[in-house]
């Protein structure tokens, strides 16, 4: 039924999203918002669209991510999804942390019998994460379990040990999937499967047809095959469609996004409008990126040794003015010091700290320490895009967890000294020294708040907040006594202790993230009838400590970093919404092999699960290497395009462990 399919094609900053937004508003004024479906790639974009509409009147806003739409529809049409009696009113949607927990249990139970994964050294948790990712990847690529198994066995080829492990993996994935069905608990992969169950019925398709006239899709290049299939359905039931496509946006290729397939499916039926003007990056950056691309691509074939492969192609040489500087040293420490000096010099010449990005493939402690130290001396701060968002780094959420550990001694988790100290500083308004004295006393008293009389408090601890201390002590004792449920506990701490201290928005969100997440967690555990005693609390806390609990919402899009030098890994930098672009980019450790991040793990290989996988081929080092190189090239190009004035390349002969660095990235810039 599709009349027009128009695709706006252009690089980042070429105004595609603005065109789509304008189109949406124009159509909304004509036919109403309810007749238009908008598909976006992530939740912040959805929020951004919804918040910035300039419509005087609007009906329901059908602006979704693929996942959000699937969730909404499976929930609404739930009685039509399963053909069995005894459904709960709504399904239970499981977040990724809970999915990992359930899968970890399954893997552990099996491993306890010592017959599965015998030759695998990975932890059960890491195996569980890979199994869940396999299911997710399979779902995104519309593979059923039999196909998933076939692909994994393809990958194993003649390696019988590997084949055995994959068969075991499949059995556990099936067991997990069955348990989800049994309890009506829906994780990401099952959600997609159930959504397609709906999409395959005429009744549902008819409803879609009656509901929508138009379809708008932004960032088509990031859509996985499953979302593309949905788009195909929508094209068959709507009138006109408008989409945006960034030919350079290949960055989440191995997280399911499939630009090649999108081109193949939609371009031939579309009117394509090329947008050549762009606003983000500078022309110099784009030209330079093009030259790098041309150079790497010109060296044909699969590259085994970078230097040799680039021999035939033209060197960057004279056309490399975009390279602002090259820093090299024998030892890494020296190199880091020099980079820090150059950063300081740039700031002295008037460059804003937030306009400088320092990118390394592996952010280790040495790097962070050197930078923090050296820059601090000049009054400069760094902003580590990787580490900024851990819930545990926010004193309020830390206090929430610290108190939980004090109230639930049976978890056998002990808050560390710093957590205790900071919690007392926050709750009792102490200075750090007195917070530390109190923390020591609590540790010495086996993690119970000691009896302290008023005089002692005044004399030794020197704080006046006698009543506050007593209140806290009595409160903890009361909660231990009452054996209060954890889910209620978190919210009580928040309401009764933390909220009255006037937390700011980020702190509130962090606390709520914990409370909310635990609620979700507890809901699923209940649905599964798991009585794990201490394990749940323990698992939950360790998840937060490891930073696995999603905390991305802490930084809303729009709050850009201006006053701190940005330190990041390539992927985080490219995908972060906190930085649009910087003026100067430092690429560190260009000799390091870490730049070539592999896409495979022992049990996970997104490539063999993608539609591009050629079933006649065998997975071998050549393919692996070629994919790694493509990925690196995409990363480098995206990095360069996120800069506007120039890049610095920094390398050392030896890495921090004293091993010679021989990665080939260095050769790309010769």
């Amino acid at each position, binding site marked *: 039924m599709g009349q027009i399919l128009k695709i706006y094609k252009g690089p980042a900053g070429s105004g595609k999203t603005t065109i789509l937004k304008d189109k949406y508003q124009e159509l909304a004024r004509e036919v*109403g918002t309810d007749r238009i479906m908008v598909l976006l790639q992530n*939740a912040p974009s959805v929020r951004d669209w919804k*918040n910035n*509409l*300039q*419509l*005087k*009147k*609007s*009906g*329901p*806003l059908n602006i979704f991510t693929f*996942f959000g739409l699937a969730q909404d529809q499976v929930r*609404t*049409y*739930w*009685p*039509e999804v*399963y053909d*069995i*009696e*005894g*459904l*709960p*009113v*709504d399904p239970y949607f499981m*977040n*990724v942390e809970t999915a990992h927990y359930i899968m970890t249990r399954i893997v552990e139970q099996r491993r306890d019998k010592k017959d599965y994964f015998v030759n695998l050294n990975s932890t059960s948790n890491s195996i569980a*994460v890979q199994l869940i*990712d396999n299911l*997710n990847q399979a779902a995104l690529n519309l593979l059923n379990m039999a196909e998933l198994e076939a692909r994994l066995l393809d990958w194993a080829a003649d390696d019988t040990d590997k084949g055995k492990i994959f068969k075991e993996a499949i059995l556990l994935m099936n067991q997990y999937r069955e348990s989800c069905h049994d309890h009506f608990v829906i994780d*990401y992969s099952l959600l997609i499967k159930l959504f397609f169950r709906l999409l395959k019925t005429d009744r549902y398709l008819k409803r879609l047809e009656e509901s929508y006239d138009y379809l708008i899709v932004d960032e088509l290049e990031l859509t996985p095959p499953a979302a593309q299939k949905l788009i195909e359905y929508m094209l068959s039931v709507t009138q006109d469609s408008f989409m945006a496509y960034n030919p350079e946006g290949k960055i989440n290729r191995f*997280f399911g996004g499939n630009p090649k397939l999108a081109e193949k499916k939609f371009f031939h039926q579309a009117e394509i409008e090329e947008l050549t003007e762009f606003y983000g990056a500078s022309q110099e950056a784009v030209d330079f990126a093009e030259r790098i691309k041309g150079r790497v691509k010109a060296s044909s074939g699969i590259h085994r040794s970078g230097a040799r492969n680039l021999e035939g192609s033209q060197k960057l040489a004279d056309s490399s003015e975009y390279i602002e500087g090259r820093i090299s040293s024998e030892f890494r420490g020296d190199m880091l010091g020099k980079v820090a000096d150059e950063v300081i010099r740039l700031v002295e010449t008037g460059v804003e700290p937030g306009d400088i990005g320092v990118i390394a493939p592996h952010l280790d402690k040495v790097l962070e320490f050197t930078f923090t130290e050296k820059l601090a001396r000049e009054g400069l701060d760094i902003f580590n895009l990787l580490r900024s968002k851990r819930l545990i780094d926010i004193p309020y959420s830390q206090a929430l967890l610290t108190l939980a550990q004090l109230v639930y001694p049976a978890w056998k988790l002990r808050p560390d000294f710093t957590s205790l100290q900071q919690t007392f500083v926050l709750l009792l308004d102490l200075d750090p020294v007195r917070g530390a004295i109190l923390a020591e006393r609590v540790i010495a008293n086996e993690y119970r708040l000691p009896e302290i009389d008023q005089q002692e408090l005044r004399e030794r601890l020197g704080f006046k907040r006698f009543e506050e201390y007593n209140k806290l002590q009595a409160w903890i004792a009361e909660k231990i006594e009452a054996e209060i449920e954890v889910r*209620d506990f978190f*919210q009580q701490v928040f*309401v*009764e202790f933390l*909220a*009255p201290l006037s937390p700011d*928005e980020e702190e*509130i*969100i962090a606390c*709520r*993230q914990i*409370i*909310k997440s635990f*609620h979700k967690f507890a809901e699923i555990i209940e649905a599964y009838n798991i009585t794990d005693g201490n394990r749940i609390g323990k698992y939950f806390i360790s998840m937060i400590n490891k930073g*696995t609990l*999603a905390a*991305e*919402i802490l930084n809303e899009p729009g709050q850009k970093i201006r006053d701190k030098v940005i330190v990041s890994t390539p992927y985080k930098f490219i995908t972060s919404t906190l930085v649009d672009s910087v003026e100067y980019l430092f690429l560190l450790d260009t000799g390091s092999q870490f730049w070539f991040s592999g896409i495979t793990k022992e049990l996970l290989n997104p490539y063999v699960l993608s539609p591009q996988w050629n079933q006649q081929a065998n997975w071998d080092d050549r393919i692996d290497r070629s994919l790694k190189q493509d990925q690196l090239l995409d990363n480098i190009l995206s990095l360069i395009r996120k800069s506007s004035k120039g890049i610095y390349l920094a390398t050392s002969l030896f890495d921090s462990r004293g091993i010679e660095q021989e990665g080939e990235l260095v050769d790309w810039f010769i």
Partner: protein
Amino acid sequence: MAVKELEKFYFSQTAIKTYLTCPLDFRSRYIDKLIWPSGYNKTEKQQAQIERGQVFHTLANRYFLGIGSQEKVEAGSEARDYLERLKDYLPVEAGIRYLPEYELRYNQDGVRLMAKFDLLYIDSENGEVIIYDWKTGDNQPETSYYQKDIQTILYQFILVEVGERYLPADFKPGDLKMIYWNPNYPEIEVEIEYSKKQHQENKNYLYNIIEEILELEYAEYAELTPGDKCYRCNYRPICEGEQPEESPVVEDDLDLDLDWEMLEEIKFYN
């Protein structure tokens, strides 16, 4: 959210009602975003009552969307009874347009308003338009209460202003009714008429309130606190450092979870 961000905020009936009850409560919820989880300070019985209300709204939505097989769902006997009573009360008929759980937004003259209707009932042939709202509380619904309720004022105003696309061709405000119905009292229908005059009055009223709120500085909210509603308020630990007494279930509790959902970000990968 900073006070200035309120300019982008769409005021719902819950938000306006909160402001009218206690401006400080409004500030805590919508500016400081201190939103309590819905179970806070509720007894098990109250919690069950809230859940029953939510389940009923879900079942009613599916009923009007024409989703079959509701009998497969284990909704609890009470919620199921509610649904049966609803079916008796309002059988789905051909020729009528039913828009359940329908959201409309108004954004003019710096005033942003939103309404989520439990059901819009549009009979184009007979020119009849009804806004239905389901209540599930224990109390018998009173016309005099709902007549002046901000929900009535807001919902009727928004539908007339924004709904033209859905309304019959020669629709006039006088053709609109709002009906509150509670399955606990299936015989009682609280029906509120509308008129052009009322529409103008509602507009003035809403504009005044929104203007008043948007002009307030952060500190001024505290100065406006009534002080006599604190004993059962969830913000008592903050305002007065004391626990609230058991708080009653209000229908608005049904909406609170929405604020929670909006914050949830789903992460797919590691």
